């Protein structure tokens, strides 16, 4: 009462409480979206992955065909549900039918769906992938093997809401957690995050609450909150997907964090290659500002916070906190010794909270549903869920969210559908270039932040690459070492020179020039780089080598002492050979497939390879019809002479 009087005296309009303010925003959003319940809605997944698979063409086809037929419907662009193997994905919601999701939609299927489903009323179940809600006609995603394991705490709205329209987020209780937080004392909000034991999802698993507390207690008026979207692991796409599919969730998490630590400015550090993510985030920020959810006096409270995007150049090392901050200051993105931690002295020397995209995403649901809810999922030391990007030799690659403590075997065999084409599983590379290659016997380890360390790997930020019998483990180790030595900033001796020497040794080995003595040098270097490097890029860079040496030593030995690549993958140690017994005089396919005219027809009409000309491109092997499968690979090279001798 007294406050209202004072405000009236000061000549300002009475500002509604945060709760009222939010209720107004939400009811307006709900009202605006009511139309979606009345007309058919076609949701098209247009995250970068969908676009790459042709989603924009599908979108345009739907629009054109609907126009042509004069059907009233909404075509909506949404983010990604994480089923990479099924892109482009389309969800059609038509009143009277369950919402149905269609996979691998092309123009033809789009026209078909408009004709049969939207114009008539046949939902084309034969093309449907799953229904969204339980119904009597068609299975849902929960009935998928992966549906049994998946538990969506942060990906729930991805692929369902339009990331470019804030109303979609608001209508699903978006920013409600912010509203709740702003009405609570900031320290109490922080305590909830601490109680939840939310650990940083960037890889290291440092408790977010403790980090925030450090920044909160650090002296100084000016503090910053930065979101680390510099995702750079080969094969990882978790953060991109979230930024593209549900940008407001990240924004909301960051505002709550800023409220806890008393920060007035924040940045979203996103690599410039993520153009779609940057565009969508820009629009999201704009809309949040318009609605009074960002900027001065958020939701009418006394709390102000400004957030902007920092478009990063995309250097892998800039994912390291101190390097990230330096690159924002306009300096070279090169790591510094810690301490001081960023929470004490970060961007421009001010206390700075830096967390991964996913970490911020967990904040709103924790505030909304409580620390208990979060801790009830996952393991005691690593509560909550984990988001993994499944890639490599796996039947159903994609983005999945499972409780912490799920085993690698469940993740690969059940969620990802196992290794395709009847091939044998060989290893899984988890944690990107900082992680390790784990063999079959490590698959039953429940994955959380700490469990994989004993096996020599780490959970990292969630990249999982499955390898099968055709993958040479020495080559894989070399691939990752090549990546880290290219991406090393070059500041410290161990990382700059050590990884370079390790790469050179691995390169020798795959070319058949390795010596057994080099393996000891390799191991020693790896161990020393792990301890001696300045930052975590260097400290973890040897992991792929150490784990492959530990679990796949036989492959190293075969390369060195037998000059043999067991996976028949290293070109210097492998030759292509056409088995005369299997080859047919009637077939010329391989000749046409060869780009260098290395394949010729022998006097007897069968085909053979001129080894001098062969560039080992693999085309003939792929081209040879399965009935013949006459093209084979041999390793070591000496096997060729044996074969030629035998078949003469």
């Amino acid at each position, binding site marked *: 009462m007294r406050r209202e009087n004072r405000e009236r005296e000061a000549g300002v309009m009475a500002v509604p409480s945060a709760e009222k303010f939010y209720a107004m925003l939400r009811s307006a959003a709900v009202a605006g979206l009511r139309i979606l319940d009345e007309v058919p809605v076609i949701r098209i997944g247009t995250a970068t992955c969908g676009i790459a698979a042709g989603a924009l063409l599908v979108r345009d086809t739907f629009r054109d065909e609907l126009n042509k037929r004069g059907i009233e419907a909404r075509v909506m662009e949404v983010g990604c549900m994480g089923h990479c193997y099924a892109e482009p994905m389309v969800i059609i919601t038509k009143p009277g039918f369950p919402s149905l999701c269609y996979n691998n939609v092309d123009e033809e299927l789009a026209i078909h769906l408009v004709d049969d489903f939207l114009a008539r009323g046949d939902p084309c179940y034969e093309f449907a992938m799953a229904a969204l809600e339980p119904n009597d006609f068609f299975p849902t995603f929960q009935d998928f093997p992966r549906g049994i394991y998946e538990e969506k705490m942060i990906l729930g709205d991805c692929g369902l809401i339009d990331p470019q329209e804030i109303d979609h987020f608001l209508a699903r209780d978006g920013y409600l957690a912010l509203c709740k937080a702003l009405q609570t004392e900031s320290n109490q909000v922080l305590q909830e995050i601490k109680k939840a034991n939310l650990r940083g999802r960037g890889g290291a698993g440092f408790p977010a609450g403790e980090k925030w507390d450090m920044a909160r207690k650090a002296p100084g008026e000016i503090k910053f909150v930065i979101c680390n979207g510099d995702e750079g692991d080969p094969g990882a796409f978790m953060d991109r997907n979230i930024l593209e599919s549900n940008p407001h969730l990240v924004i909301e998490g960051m505002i709550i964090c800023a409220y806890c630590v008393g920060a007035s400015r924040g940045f979203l550090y996103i690599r410039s290659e993520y153009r779609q993510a940057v565009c969508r985030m820009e629009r999201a920020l704009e809309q949040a500002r318009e609605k009074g959810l960002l900027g001065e006096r958020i939701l009418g409270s006394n709390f102000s916070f400004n957030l902007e995007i920092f478009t990063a150049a995309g*250097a892998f*090392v800039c994912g390291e906190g101190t390097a990230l901050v330096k690159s924002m200051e306009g300096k*070279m993105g*090169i790591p*510094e*010794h810690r301490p001081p931690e960023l929470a004490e002295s970060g961007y421009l020397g001010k206390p700075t909270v830096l967390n991964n995209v996913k970490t911020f995403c967990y904040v709103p649901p924790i505030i909304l549903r409580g620390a208990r809810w979060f801790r009830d999922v996952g393991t005691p030391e690593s509560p909550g869920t984990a988001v993994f990007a499944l890639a490599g030799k796996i039947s159903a690659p994609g983005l999945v969210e499972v409780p912490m403590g799920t085993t690698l075997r469940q993740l690969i065999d059940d969620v990802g559908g196992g290794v395709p084409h009847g091939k044998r599983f060989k290893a899984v590379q988890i944690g990107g270039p900082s992680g390790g290659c784990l063999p079959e016997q490590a698959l039953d380890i429940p994955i959380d932040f700490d469990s994989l360390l004993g096996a020599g790997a780490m959970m990292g930020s969630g990249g999982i690459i499955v390898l099968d019998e055709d993958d040479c483990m020495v080559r894989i180790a070399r691939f990752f070492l090549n990546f880290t*030595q*290219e*991406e*090393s*900033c*070059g*500041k*410290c*001796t*161990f990382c*700059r*020179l*050590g*990884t*370079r*020497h390790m790469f*050179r040794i691995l390169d020798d080995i795959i070319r058949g020039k390795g010596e057994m*003595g080099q393996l000891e*040098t390799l191991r*020693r*270097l790896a161990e*020393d780089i792990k*301890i*001696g*490097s*300045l930052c975590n890029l260097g400290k973890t860079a040897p992991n792929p080598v150490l784990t492959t040496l530990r679990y796949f030593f036989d492959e190293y030995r075969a390369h060195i002492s037998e000059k043999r690549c067991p996976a028949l993958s290293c070109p210097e140690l492998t030759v292509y050979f056409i088995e005369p017994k299997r080859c047919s005089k009637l077939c010329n396919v391989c000749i046409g497939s060869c780009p260098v005219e290395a394949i010729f027809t022998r006097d007897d009409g069968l085909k053979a390879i001129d080894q001098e000309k062969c560039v080992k491109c693999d085309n003939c092997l792929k081209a040879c019809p399965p009935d013949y499968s006459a093209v084979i690979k041999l390793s070591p090279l000496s096997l060729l002479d044996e074969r030629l001798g035998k078949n003469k």
Partner: protein
Amino acid sequence: MSKKVTITIDGRRISAHEGEKLLWVALDSGIYIPHLCAIRGQDRPPAGCRLCFVEVGGRLGPVTACTEPIREGMVVRTRTPRVDRLVETAFRLLLSDHRLDCKNCTKNGRCELQVIARERGLGPDRDPLQPLPAKTYIDESPRTFVFDPGRCVLCGRCVWVDQQVAGVGAIGFSGRGIRRRVTTFGDSNLAESPCTECGLCVEVCPVGALFFKLPAKKTKGDS
């Protein structure tokens, strides 16, 4: 000045100012710790050469002495198997990227790589690492000194004094990973850069990458 505390390095009790960096305290007390990149007075040492490892009681692994602040009662060991191994590896790594031609180098006898080798008993002979391809370009354009990148160990002392002490900013780092190097803006030679030839960078170079031209050459054009 901060308060005086007592610490122990290799069994010797030493009195030092709290918060001071361990490396300088040890060196001032006559205890050698290998080092290349650190310069006294740096706010935040680069900690890039990774040579000044020591073990400090209560800490899990070896730590760099240039970044370790002095605390009351700390117990430091400069020679342990773990430290010696790291120093040896770092030293051999640096040597693999350093053109070894000591007898023709002006720093022969004063080179800090030689000091490390002598103090720790490390010679080039047992080195199992293949030398990396040497950089062959040499910048002789300045009137008074020469820059030979093939000998550079990328410690960054020259860059620091150029930017922080001289305030000139003629040189800086460029390139990533193995391509990191000390260079001028736009890769011009030093004579065309803002370099004032103050000579500070040459004085701090721990190896023979920056060295003064012989006086005879310097006065040649003057008379």
